[in-house]
């Protein structure tokens, strides 16, 4: 059997890296984790991901992969146990659709922007993030523990950052996005997610995240 050498270049607080780690853990794939300082990028990182110069980068038997969603699909296709994407093509299309939606509307231009913004910009970012979260809440209603039902899957991994990073951003940015009375299905899902065995012992310590994001907030105020 071909030896499976898997290395993952990451940064301790990156949600993009975390989702790859969860996927590898769920599939029981052993890997070597290499911590990168993204503020002082190593020659290795620049060599492996010259196009974006970002983590995560997965190296599997010399094959180099970048972009977290691309990596997730690769992991799913290469290691068949514990499937992440659903089997049915329409369900797969929906999972991909919502992952992209959440990435654009809740993560990048959503919550983190809202945390850093002031005045009108803050109101706007907050409003659109909450609107986006309402759609996710709609997707979770009546679904079971996770987006795909009883088992954790691709869309859970794509949105998993919400369960432990969003509360930190809310704290640090003094904003309220995840109101459990307004988003009960999401709140329940968050709890299931952080307690999942593949997730719970791999999350960065909360106090360390608070210090990090407080600093970033000061540096990136908009």
């Amino acid at each position, binding site marked *: 059997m071909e030896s499976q050498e898997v290395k993952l270049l990451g940064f301790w607080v990156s949600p993009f890296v975390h989702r790859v780690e969860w996927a590898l853990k769920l599939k029981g794939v052993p890997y070597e984790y290499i911590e990168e300082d993204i503020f002082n990028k190593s020659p290795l990182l620049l060599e492996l991901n010259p*196009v*974006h110069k970002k983590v995560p980068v997965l190296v*599997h038997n010399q*094959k180099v*992969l*970048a*972009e977290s*969603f*691309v*990596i997730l*699909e*690769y992991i799913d*296709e*290469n290691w068949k146990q514990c499937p992440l994407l659903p089997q049915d*093509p*329409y369900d*797969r*299309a929906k999972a*991909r*659709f919502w992952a*992209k*939606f959440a990435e654009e509307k809740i993560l990048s231009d959503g919550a983190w922007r809202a945390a850093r913004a002031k005045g009108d910009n803050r109101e706007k970012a907050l409003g659109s993030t909450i609107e986006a979260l309402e*759609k996710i809440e709609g997707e979770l209603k009546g679904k079971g523990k996770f987006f795909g039902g009883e088992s954790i899957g691709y869309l859970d991994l794509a949105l998993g950052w919400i369960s432990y990073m969003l509360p930190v951003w809310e704290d640090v940015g003094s904003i309220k996005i995840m109101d459990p009375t307004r988003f009960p299905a999401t709140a329940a899902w968050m709890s299931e997610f952080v307690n999942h065995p593949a997730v719970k012992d791999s999350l960065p310590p909360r106090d360390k995240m608070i210090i990090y994001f407080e600093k970033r907030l000061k540096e990136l105020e908009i």
Partner: protein
Amino acid sequence: MANKEVRVLGAWPSPFVMRARIALNIKKLDYEFLQEQLGSKSELLLKSNPVHKKIPVLIHGDKPICESLVIVQYVDEVWSSGPSILPSDPYDRAIARFWAAYIDDKWFPSLSGIPRAQGEEAKMAAIQQVRDGLELLEDAFVKCSKGKPFFGGDSIGYLDIAFGCFLGWLRVTEKSNGVKLLDETKTPNLAKWAVRFCSDVAVKDVMPDTDKLAEFAKVLFAKFRAPPPSN
């Protein structure tokens, strides 16, 4: 295949809509093409894509599928007996998806940046960005094609579709700015690939004529003071 079973909501100038149509053409599927009017959104569009209210939407039976690359993958997975759109090897698939994401997240926005640029200096910088991106894609072509005519190998595939759909707008941008972007001397493989792609049987009837597209671009800019739609 019944005509009403597969419908595409779209518009002929949209490169994103073209992706869906090329995918269906590769699989030799009949479909009904329902064109949206510029400046208004039909009831069917608002109902099928309430989240983004954008084209393309593929409606298969009663199931709406949105986002052009999600649609292409859906078509590939449902009609799996037809010619494959994504490569079969997981690593080749990952490479194709990586570059498709690059094109959507970085390269196409840089192309849209040219008409948006204010002033000569900004325009030159925007043009350079597009050219730099094309050089990256030239390298990607050499690696992915492995000596064959397309990114996908012997026949057009996912990455050919993801990138090739922008060739019309690329030519319009070249014409209206008096600049060569896809240069035979700098990116010879891409230049040759572009000709092959546009003449492919799955592409040629859905790739708009450059002059017609340029006329449309004028109308678009006049109406909205904005460059092409970004899906």
